[in-house]
């Protein structure tokens, strides 16, 4: 099913009428029966004002970045957009096209076959990368292993460029709210496995994933894979500053690396944030994963006895194509040895008020 993914980036302290913006957004999505929504907490980042927010200091970690996604049909997303714009006054919002491959309770086996065919058709020509996002529950299991471990192993076996497991803290799944609670088992709270790879292996994986997962909910998007394990594969998209209708074009660069990756002795993702903050980047958000891989090595995460963290980190930067090109030069240099870098085209709007809807 062709869908639209609405992603909002904001600070966790942002409020609306005294209530947290994150909670209000999820409430809107729930009211509107959004099919799939996840709330992620970032670990580090900065926005337009270039104030650094980091989890590393107790007091500075008072306003960490938050990412909220909502995925549904274009009509439903359009309908809730007015509600969202009414309350979201700061920060970035993006709308991306995605293909939702889900096995809802009433989907027939024949529809599953169509799903595979759709994936292949969406896959388009060879040589273009794909991003697969797979939703699993926190305590979901495949066989006798946690679902995310089993899925990552499968993805790694099939030669995907990388996969990172992100822990959601709130969300919606087929209209059902899945919020993590302080005193609760939190078994259904969503985890998103973000996988990047070539079109063919990903298209082949979809029916397999649908088979092994309980209620598979899979999203497919197009990306360009720029770097892997220090090797430059492709330059990021070279976009014009605006499209034919004069709407501003935006570009998203994502760096997938390990928390313990270093560049000249300093933490890789922290160095990316530091340098981009010193420059004129519009904003950067770092999100820690739990498990994953982004190169030839096996999937990994934190160990029980460790001093350094070994989880994957996603460093996300959205900017105008011109600035993104400059940022890529920086990222290219820092990812000399490690890291998976992708480029995506996103129509974005800086949400200032409902009246200033600038691009869609």
């Amino acid at each position, binding site marked *: 099913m062709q869908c639209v993914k609405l992603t909002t980036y904001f600070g966790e302290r942002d409020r609306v009428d005294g209530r947290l913006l994150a909670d209000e957004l999820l409430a809107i999505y729930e009211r509107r029966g959004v099919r799939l929504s996840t709330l992620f907490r970032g670990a580090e980042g900065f926005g337009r004002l270039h104030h650094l927010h980091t989890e590393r200091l107790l007091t500075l970690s008072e306003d960490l970045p938050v990412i909220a996604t909502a995925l549904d049909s274009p009509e439903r997303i359009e309908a809730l957009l007015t509600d969202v714009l009414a309350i979201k006054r700061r920060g970035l919002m993006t709308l991306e096209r995605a293909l939702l491959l889900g096995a809802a309770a009433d989907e027939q086996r024949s529809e599953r076959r169509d799903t595979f065919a759709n994936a292949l058709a969406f896959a388009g020509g060879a040589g273009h990368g794909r991003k697969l996002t797979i939703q699993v529950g*926190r*305590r979901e299991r495949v066989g006798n292993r946690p679902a995310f471990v089993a899925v990552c192993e499968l993805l790694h076996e099939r030669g995907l460029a990388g996969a990172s497991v992100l822990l959601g803290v709130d969300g919606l799944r087929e209209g059902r709210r899945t919020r993590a609670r302080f005193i609760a088992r939190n078994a259904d709270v969503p985890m998103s496995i973000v996988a990047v790879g070539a079109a063919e292996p990903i298209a082949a994986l979809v029916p397999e994933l649908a088979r092994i997962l309980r209620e598979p909910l899979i999203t497919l998007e197009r990306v360009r894979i720029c770097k892997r394990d220090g090797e430059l594969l492709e330059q990021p998209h070279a976009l014009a500053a605006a499209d034919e209708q004069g709407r501003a074009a935006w570009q998203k660069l994502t760096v997938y690396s390990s928390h313990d990756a270093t560049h000249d002795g300093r933490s890789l993702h922290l160095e990316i944030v530091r340098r981009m903050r010193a420059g004129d980047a519009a904003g950067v958000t770092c999100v820690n994963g739990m498990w994953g891989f982004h190169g030839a090595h096996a999937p990994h995460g934190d160990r029980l006895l460790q001093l350094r963290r070994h989880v994957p980190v996603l460093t996300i930067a959205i900017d105008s194509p011109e600035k993104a090109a400059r940022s890529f030069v920086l990222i290219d240099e820092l990812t000399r040895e490690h890291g998976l870098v992708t480029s995506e085209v996103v129509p974005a709007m800086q949400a200032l008020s409902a009246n200033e809807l600038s691009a869609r």
Partner: protein
Amino acid sequence: MPDLDRREIAAIFLGGALGSLLRMWLGRTFATGAGDWPWATFTINVTGSFALAYFATRLQERLPRSIYRRPLLGTGFCGAYTTFSTMQVETLQMIDDDRYALAATYALTSVLAGLVAIWIATALVRRVRIIA
């Protein structure tokens, strides 16, 4: 400075009051003589560190943001429950008594035990195979 929310200040106040009361009560119940190893302060600081790491890690990485939980449990309770100043004055007293080895041992053991407590609590919250 982020905009202050009255609920946060109230949460910090409540947590601080409770942490302070507990520390006071434990300090009086398990009081040690001047010059002895300050068991009360030591135990309070180590257990408080464990609790802070548990709360902070869990609230930050596993749960959606809550307006009052971290100010209440982290900044408020654990911050007030544990104490740095008392520990310094106790160390100073040992130095006064020319018990330099004891002073160094006290300071370093407190730090080491505190860090181990943080480390264990953090690992417990983050354990990958079984997560909550």
